[in-house]
């Protein structure tokens, strides 16, 4: 149901590198799971509203008051490669 090409496409979207063995396994496992999931296509869901949130809540607001945010250095301490007060990453086009 889901082939090698599709697995590679989705892996690219998800920014996941998969090795050949993982691609094969993923194709067969995802197909099995999706086959089960497909059962919902039998249901008549015309006119049924989708649910994205279960509890009725609307416009939860708070006063717009300025407050201190996190300390920059404390945040950068946790980064794999902080530099000059920022997060350093490899070039997008190395």
């Amino acid at each position: 149901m889901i082939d090698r090409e599709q697995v590679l496409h989705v892996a690219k979207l998800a920014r996941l590198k998969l090795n050949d063995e993982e691609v094969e396994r993923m194709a067969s496992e995802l197909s099995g799971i999706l086959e089960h999931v497909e059962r919902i296509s039998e249901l008549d869901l015309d006119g049924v509203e989708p649910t994205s949130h279960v509890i009725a809540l609307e416009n939860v607001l708070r006063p717009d008051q300025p407050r201190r945010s996190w300390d920059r250095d404390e945040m950068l301490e946790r980064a794999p490669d902080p530099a000059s007060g920022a997060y350093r990453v490899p070039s997008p086009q190395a």
Partner: protein
Amino acid sequence: MAGDLIDLTVAEAAERIRSGELAADEYFDAYRDAASRDSLNAFLWTAEDAEEGGDGPLGGIPIAIKDIFCTEGIPTTAGSRILEGYRPPYTATAVRKLREAGARVLGKVNMDEFAMGSSNENSGYGPVLNPWDSGRVPGGSSGGSAAAVAGRLAPCAIGTDTGGSIRQPAALCGIVGMKPTYGAVSRYGMIAFASSLDQCGPLTRDVTDAALVLQAVEGRDPCDSTSIGIEGGIGLPSSEDLKGLSFGIPKELASEAEGIESGVKEVFERTVALIEELGGEVSETELPHAPHGISAYYVLAPAEASANLARFDGVRYGMRVDAGDLTEMYEETRANGFGDEVKRRIMLGTYALSSGYYEAYYGRAQRVRTKIAEDFSKAFERFDFVVTPTSPTVAFKLGAKTDDPLAMYLNDYCTVPMPLAGIPAISIPAGLAAPDDGGPELPVGFQIAGPAFSDSAMLDAAHALEGAIGFGGNGATT
């Protein structure tokens, strides 16, 4: 002496500490010693020194925290190698509130990576073992929380439940586990798996202790705009009977459900008979869309997860694998940092949300979710509660389902419909049963679910039933 101490419930210990009969430090030391001898791989981090306790309702009570809750300065991994060594700069609201109630963090406990799993075999730090039989799983994803409490390594714990991750391990380990109404407890500082489903709840030895822990953590939090709290708070349960209450047994999740072990069925039926003896009315009902819960859940939860886990990219925290350009760095970091199940769910979720498939999977699953919630609403017009077995089987053997993701997902058959509807549900130990594949008897969980915000009433009913069941809970061998 230490043996006696660790047999106390939270309510008993808190009372003795309040009256001065028990020194909080002595109690903490007894558990720290027990936790340091952990042979179940439940603890990922244990406190060396006792935190300053308060004199609130949980004054001096040590508590195990699922490693999905951020704790300032204390390692927090969510069971993933991608967060190895990470120490958060802030503390989850649930943990802060436990401390304000006087509790002391005893340790951080193991879990399926990012809460994805039903056996705790998906942890990046090795599986947790079931204290009743170390060859079997404790359930998941809050497997460390359940094993620590059942194995007498902690008096109580908190976990998170997205599709059954508190109730199923509680059932498999013979303890109480409760998923509160969605919005009862703040999700701030709880590393997100599926935000519209995730909810924090207690894992304890008995129902009173579950109420005590929930009482401390519930409440509206400005840091989580989806949190509401429980109006009027959580009262301590006291009911001894079920007079005037009605219980529906949804046939789809009981008599007609496939794959329920015969021993589990027997214990379930025996427990239903006890409800009647306690004066409760019982009859069969239906939740026609509940059998589609697994399908809807395994689209919606992975879809939300695929978005939530995008933040683990090797830039701001956690591990990084250096590689060529930026995209390769992302891909290699995530390939090395995530385990198999997390990758599977990210792939599944990304696929379900991708162009051309969105409506067929995600859109339809959201509509099934509506139907499941409507089924429950209809049932609650006639009944105060619905009851089901918590898990189709008792604890299974390590490795038994690791090669078959779908078989693993079906463990959640009876527990996914409730979070999809946002309603509260509790699992209490109801007895012992031998697994279908033979071997000694193991705990069976009984699930009670109620309408949204019926948490206190549900605890009360569970308390009455617990008294009638009289589960000893002393079979854990460690």
